[in-house]
């Protein structure tokens, strides 16, 4: 099987509009969660959010794109894709090659404009550009048009695990020889539809989320996008290699539509499959970037799953304490953060943690730690409908 390397990364989240800004916040332990300014909703007064610190029009003017009707979801995606392509030094020819696949992910799509959508739909009046954006694949087609993509263009929606699955799909296309390069990742903007939804589920915290804390009381929603450029060993040449994709696992918990089983069936199976594919023993994993949403159900289940596989817990954190839960974008954003740990050989603190959850009594990483020996990192993403995924990346040899 061919080796698959990451040759470019791009990210935009509540802690920065590019890789450098995101890295700097992680190193300083500085969260991006706070009062939302750009979100036009009464919820901005009720809950903190991990909002990207740019207005939709600023996002648009930062990009030099002529396309009309771009939603916030689209603009976040464009921003991160552009950065990833620049970092990988992809030529226009490489981007438009029929051997370059684009695998994206989104749960909200144009639903970040639900009000316009629904009112439009009922009156069939103006802003038809936005009505067309309803489909979650709309952002991918706009990117495809902008970059003249000719290869496979696919979008995955497995709720909160979507973009980790997009990375997995791109990797598999390359390993099988169906593509030589893939642009993979995901995007989601804050939107009333999802805020209403998580509020209906009563799992939104009134305070910034406290992953793995005994007194955690729910998640904080965020927004963002991250994309990675994956290339087959045959075409990487002398490029700067950020990481190698070593293992991936996907499993369904098959327990409940919106919560994970106490036994962590899906969580354990996903991590086990990823280890098996990477042919690594659990002891080799130096750090886990957890799903860590700070809901009652997720954090307990994830700790249960990790214990079942690892026995002794490796270093772990939840970077959702910086960005909030960015839904379909979270897997890709957290993979980029995992790449930072690999590249810099350092670990970033999990924020807002005070009291460990019994009976696990596990402390996440609490301090910024430099000069670590990090060779293998695991990233977890779990979603509604039981979708559990786990990815293992390693330092390129």
């Amino acid at each position, binding site marked *: 099987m061919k080796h698959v390397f990451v040759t470019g990364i791009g990210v935009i989240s509540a802690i920065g509009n590019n890789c450098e800004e995101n890295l700097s916040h992680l190193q300083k332990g500085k969260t991006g969660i706070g009062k939302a300014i750009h979100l036009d909703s009464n919820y901005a007064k009720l809950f903190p959010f991990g909002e990207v610190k740019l207005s939709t029009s600023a996002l648009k003017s930062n990009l030099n794109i002529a396309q009309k009707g771009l939603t916030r979801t689209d603009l976040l995606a464009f921003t991160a894709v552009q950065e990833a392509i620049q970092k990988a030094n992809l030529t226009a020819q490489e981007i438009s090659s029929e051997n370059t696949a684009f695998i994206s992910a989104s749960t909200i799509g144009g639903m970040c404009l639900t009000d316009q959508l629904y009112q439009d739909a009922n009156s069939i009046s103006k802003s038809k550009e936005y009505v067309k954006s309803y489909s979650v694949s709309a952002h991918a087609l706009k990117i495809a048009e902008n970059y003249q993509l000719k290869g496979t263009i696919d979008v995955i929606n497995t709720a909160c695990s979507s973009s980790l699955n997009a990375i997995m799909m791109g990797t598999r296309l390359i390993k099988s020889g169906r593509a030589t390069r893939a642009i993979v990742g995901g995007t989601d903007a804050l939107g*009333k539809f999802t805020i209403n939804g998580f509020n209906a589920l009563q799992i939104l915290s009134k305070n910034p989320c406290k992953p793995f804390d005994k007194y955690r009381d729910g998640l904080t929603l965020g927004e963002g996008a991250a994309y990675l450029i994956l290339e087959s060993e045959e075409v990487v040449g002398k490029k700067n290699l950020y990481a190698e994709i070593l293992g991936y696992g996907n499993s*369904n918990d098959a327990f409940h539509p919106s919560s994970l089983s106490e036994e962590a069936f899906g969580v354990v*199976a996903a991590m086990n499959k990823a280890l098996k594919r990477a042919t690594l023993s659990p002891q080799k994993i130096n750090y886990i970037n957890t799903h860590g949403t700070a809901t009652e159900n997720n954090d307990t289940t994830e700790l249960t799953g990790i214990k079942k596989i690892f026995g002794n817990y490796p270093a772990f954190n939840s970077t959702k304490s910086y960005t909030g839960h960015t839904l379909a974008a979270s897997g890709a954003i957290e993979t980029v953060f995992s790449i930072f740990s690999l590249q810099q050989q350092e670990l970033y603190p999990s924020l807002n943690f005070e009291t460990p959850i019994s009976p696990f009594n596990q402390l996440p990483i609490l301090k910024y730690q430099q000069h670590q020996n990090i060779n293998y990192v695991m990233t977890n993403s779990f979603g509604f409908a039981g979708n559990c995924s786990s990815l293992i990346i390693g330092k390129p040899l």
Partner: protein
Amino acid sequence: MYYINACSTISHQGSFQNESWINELKIVTNNSKLITPNYKEFVDAADLRRMSKIIRMGIACSKDCIQQAEIDNPDAIIVGTGLGCLTDTEKFLHNTLTIEGLIPPTAFIQSTHNTIAGQISLALKNHQYNMTHTQNSLSFEHALMDGMLCLDEEKDTVLVGSADENIALMDELSKSFNWSEIENKLTSGASFFIVSNAKNNLTKVQLIDCFTVGLNDTNPKALITSFLAKNNLSLNDIDLVLFNSNGTLKLDIIQKEFNPISVLSYEHFCGYYFTNVAFGMHLATEILNKKKTSFITNNKPVHRILLYNNFNNKNIGLTLLQALEA
């Protein structure tokens, strides 16, 4: 090698658990109705109440497939859906705009596209690979390609399918999309398949390959020729092209384009929904498996069928099926 060992479709044709449905094909009109099974035979009545049409169709077709293929549980569940769970999305959206105070969360949970594959895994108690692809008219092909990747890796038997549901709002919305070219009724449908890397006595046809172009800017015919060449075939080896009759893809144009190969629009028999190519794949499977030659000019035997899914000449999906004895 990939083999289709079971198919199950809910459509306007009464295709569900009906061996002879291709003998009774009727063109879908504005008045024809989706013919649905008694879902209580597949889902517990209490669960059924909460399920929208798209989830019901997905579970019924999946269970039917598993029964037909005589397997306990597939090694993967992969679903393609163009627009996902519209009923629950609209329901939740409507509730948020009309209900003061706490809104019930069920419609929100069931609004995400992966609800179909998730509910199937729940119904089957299946912990295997579980994936949902959504890319407009190519969603089913991407699910199928994912299934083929799974079979190339370590899996033996995968459940691959698609489902889409129409809601009344879509009929209105479609007027504001660039969908004016859609001539067939907007409707719902689901088709699921058991695809395996091993042939057995239940195998219906061989799936040779599947390929998509997301943003085509060349002559589709050139794409088709190169797709066939990759599989060491040429247009002469194709006996029937099953296509979707949208916009510029009128029957007479396609006929001229592929002459002397026989062509047939599958979309006339299932109506329009984003993943209706899966209906086309079931139709192709039946034609090949039952050696149905009445669709073919000169009643020649039919060995190979090309499924040609073309939306606005931009999104193109190509799927190639072959009869077992060919």
